[in-house]
């Protein structure tokens, strides 16, 4: 049962009958309750704030072709399709009529990174409003030409239609300057009761090419004259290349060049396997001086809490608590986690007449462009980054670094496009991991079964070392004139980094949350899907179950009792009801358990609740999720199947992180360098069924859903394993070894 189940609920949208709805101002109210209204005109919606001209987003050719521009990138999350649906809805035109240009430094708005589940909120909102305003301009033009009042004109399939049937094609109406105007703060948005394209399961536009061998990825890009490059990475962090004898390698068949700049080493050859063989020969010939001193992986939690920290008070609403309460304390930990993209990072770069073009699957073409220009000491306007889809990244993987590698090799081979693809071992050993983290929490429950106080502390490195500057790029740190790694910075709340989702959405009389930001980074880290939200939700939702047990309460009832947000309660009730939570057998079968968890991602984005059943095999300690039911509220739904696909994926990926994954290293080198040393979920552990209920909130702001499932899935699995075994697991991953040790096998 994979079809999403759509629940339509008329949300409490003030003035439902009103035609003018400002999504952006509604979003601000929802997001920042405490902020006072700003004086002056209301801000422009979504990314129109930074890029206010309508024709930065939508252009119409004389032949009626509509082109939509977005600074966001397709990462496999289905954003191309969703953005087309949004534009098509407001312009009353079939999505097949549109062209969509995604992140490209020469063509599109600069929308920073495609990250943080922001694409619909930023770009979707901008395109929706821009499309609505373009529609009004086209209607106004048709009104002027026909003498018919605008309110009697309609739009349909790329034309304005008069009551007498006359048809004015968008292409005839548009003129050069018509759309070159500033967006207005408010748009005449179509009323959601009239929606034809949104909240509809339409097929993704990118899938046919992907399942028929079309050119769908940067890996498939083969411009004329393309040659192949490979890089040799050092054996460990910071190792310096002492010596490499290249003369014989330069004479290998097909080899065009060996490129060395300090400790950056690469090969360029006519054919791909020739470049690989040259890379292998270079790796064998290279002598390195290794200096890395990695921490003792076994002592990691103590090491992290012992590192010098910058303490940030995230929330301090402490009150004196009445005595006699039952008090609990717990420590939760997570290891470093790999993005583990199935396709190693890849880029193609070409230097032509002092201008460099890079086709890259970076999540941020503009910041990557700036970093690469700085590394090559080129003017920014001479470097162009064009987003071209890669394998799923789930955050900051090797994409930006591969783009830098390609740029360096292309500089050595002017005129020829150079394609660089990392090896599996390079991707696994050199990508920036999701940071290891520690959470310590104490709380007490009063005699009425309410949580009386909550004191929470999280220790973490930064969750973003993205470019940045040139020093963010791996290759730049190894050049003869190296760029130093920029100092790490915490991502401020309300979105947060290590402290993302560290404030529980539950209401307690006394709450404190402290973030211990750790500037020292013994292992290379950056953004991994959901950032600290994965760990904080795992910890909070595990501890909620521990407190519910202390209070003798049902975990779902206990959560509902501490919430005053009806949308939160709705997803919890929907997931619990659809799962049959209240009818689950209690401790009926040994080794079978049920778990529940909830979070609102970042406390700002989508709401997600997950119930699941697991089975733990006694002899092996192997835990398997058998069934999961999720409910998600992402505001106004654009493509319900897209949301369901993201949540299904989040559940399985997070289950994999939670049960199996752990980056390993010795005192010098990363030792989890492939799929045998870094195992992930395989089909034998895939559940029998996952069901996703999508709650539509007509007319409400878009809430990103790409990362909403990561935390709840982890905690639901952990809670189910605790239910199945009677043992609480607070250290990730909850591996079969740890389970066996706990249950005494």
């Amino acid at each position, binding site marked *: 049962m994979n079809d999403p189940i759509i629940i339509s609920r008329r949300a409490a949208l003030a003035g439902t009958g009103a035609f003018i709805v400002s999504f952006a101002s509604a979003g601000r109210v929802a997001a920042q309750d405490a902020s006072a209204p700003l004086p002056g005109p209301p801000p422009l919606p979504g990314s129109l704030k930074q890029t206010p001209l309508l024709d930065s987003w939508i252009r119409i050719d004389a032949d009626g072709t509509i082109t939509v521009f977005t600074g966001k990138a397709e990462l*496999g999350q289905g954003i191309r399709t969703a953005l087309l649906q949004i534009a098509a809805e407001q312009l009353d035109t079939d999505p097949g009529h549109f062209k969509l240009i995604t992140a490209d430094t020469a063509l599109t708005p600069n929308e920073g990174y495609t990250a943080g589940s922001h694409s619909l909120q930023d770009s979707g909102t901008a395109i929706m409003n821009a499309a609505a305003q373009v529609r009004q301009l086209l209607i106004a033009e048709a009104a002027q030409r026909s003498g018919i009042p605008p309110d009697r004109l309609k739009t349909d399939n790329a034309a304005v239609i008069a009551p007498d049937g006359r048809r004015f094609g968008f292409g005839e109406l548009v003129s050069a300057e018509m759309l070159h105007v500033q967006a207005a703060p408010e748009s005449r948005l179509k009323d959601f009761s009239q929606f034809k394209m949104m909240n509809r399961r339409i097929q993704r536009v990118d899938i046919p090419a992907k*399942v028929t061998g079309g050119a769908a990825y940067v890996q498939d890009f083969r411009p004329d004259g393309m040659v192949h490059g490979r890089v040799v990475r050092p054996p460990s962090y910071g190792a310096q290349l002492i010596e490499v004898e290249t003369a014989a390698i330069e004479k290998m068949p097909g080899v065009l060049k060996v490129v060395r700049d300090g400790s950056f080493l690469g090969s360029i050859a006519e054919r791909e396997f020739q470049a690989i063989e040259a890379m292998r020969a270079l790796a064998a010939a290279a002598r390195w001086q290794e200096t890395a001193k990695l921490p003792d992986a076994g002592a990691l939690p103590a090491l992290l809490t012992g590192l010098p920290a910058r303490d940030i008070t995230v929330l301090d609403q402490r009150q004196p608590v009445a005595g006699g309460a039952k008090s609990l304390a717990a420590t939760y930990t997570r290891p470093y986690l790999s993005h583990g993209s199935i396709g190693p990072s890849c880029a193609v770069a070409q230097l032509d007449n002092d201008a460099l073009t890079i086709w890259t699957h970076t999540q941020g073409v503009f910041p990557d462009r700036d970093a690469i220009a700085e590394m090559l000491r080129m003017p920014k306007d001479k470097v162009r980054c064009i987003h071209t889809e890669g394998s*799923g990244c789930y955050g900051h993987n090797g994409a930006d670094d591969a783009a830098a590698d390609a740029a360096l090799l292309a500089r050595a081979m002017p005129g020829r496009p150079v394609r660089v693809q990392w090896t599996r071992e390079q991707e696994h050993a050199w990508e920036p991991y999701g940071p290891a983290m520690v959470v310590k929490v104490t709380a007490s429950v009063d005699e009425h079964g309410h949580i009386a106080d909550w004191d929470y502390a999280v220790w973490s490195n930064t969750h973003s070392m993205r470019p940045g500057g040139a020093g963010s790029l791996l290759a730049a740190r190894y050049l003869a004139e190296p760029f130093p790694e920029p100092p790490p910075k915490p991502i401020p709340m309300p979105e947060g980094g290590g402290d993302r989702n560290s404030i529980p959405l539950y209401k307690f009389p006394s709450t404190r949350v402290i973030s211990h930001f750790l500037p020292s980074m013994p292992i290379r880290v950056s953004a991994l899907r959901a950032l600290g939200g994965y760990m904080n939700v795992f910890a909070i939702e595990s501890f909620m179950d521990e407190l519910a047990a202390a209070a003798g309460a049902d975990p779902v009832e206990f959560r509902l009792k501490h919430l005053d947000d009806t949308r939160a309660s709705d997803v919890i009730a929907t997931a619990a009801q659809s799962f049959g939570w209240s009818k689950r057998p209690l401790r009926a079968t040994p080794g079978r358990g049920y778990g529940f968890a909830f979070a609102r991602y970042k406390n700002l984005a989508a709401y997600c609740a997950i119930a699941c059943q697991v089975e733990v095999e006694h002899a092996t300690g192997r835990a398997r999720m058998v069934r999961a039911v999720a409910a998600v509220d992402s505001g106004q739904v654009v493509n319900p199947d897209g949301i369901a696909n993201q949540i299904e994926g989040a559940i399985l990926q997070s289950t994999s992180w939670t049960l199996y994954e752990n980056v390993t290293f010795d005192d010098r080198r990363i030792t989890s360098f492939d799929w045998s040393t870094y195992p992930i979920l395989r089909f034998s552990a895939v559940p029998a069924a996952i069901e996703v209920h999508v709650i539509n909130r007509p007319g409400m702001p878009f809430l990103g859903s790409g990362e909403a499932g990561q935390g709840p899935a982890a905690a639901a699995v952990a809670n189910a394993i605790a239910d199945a075994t009677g043992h609480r697991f607070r250290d990730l991953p909850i591996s079969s070894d740890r389970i066996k040790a706990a249950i005494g096998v």
Partner: protein
Amino acid sequence: MKLNVNNAQHDVDADPRTPLLYVLRDDLKLNAAKFGCGLGQCGACTVLVNGEPVFSCVTPVALLAGKEITTLEGLGTAENPAPIQRAFIEAQAAQCGYCIPGMMMRAQALLQKNPHADDAEIRAWLEPNLCRCGTHMRILHAVHRAQEMMKPAQPGDAG
């Protein structure tokens, strides 16, 4: 050397040690088989050789003279998709999609050999192939759907 790929003979000028994957992608310009690991650990490069799934990233072309090689392109096109391609589109069985061609070729081999494979057999068969987006439920759904489509039509079946 000569290679038979998707029912056509190709003259390939490559070092015999070259893994098939690079010949398919670079010489024959076929996109579907993907580089994932180069180690035979993930299945992104899976193609069929005489109907059996092989990891093309670790199979030298020297071993393939006279064998029938089939890639995803050999099954159908975007305009005229094969049953398994239609099934994956209908089930929207992709997120990033990078692992999907390998999954499809592996599943295709099973459905050709054992049209009546049950769910447990399908899951066990797909075990070598990795997906990182977590699209597994949809992949299974699509393989079951393809299985229905590939069954010989019975009298009275509506299409």
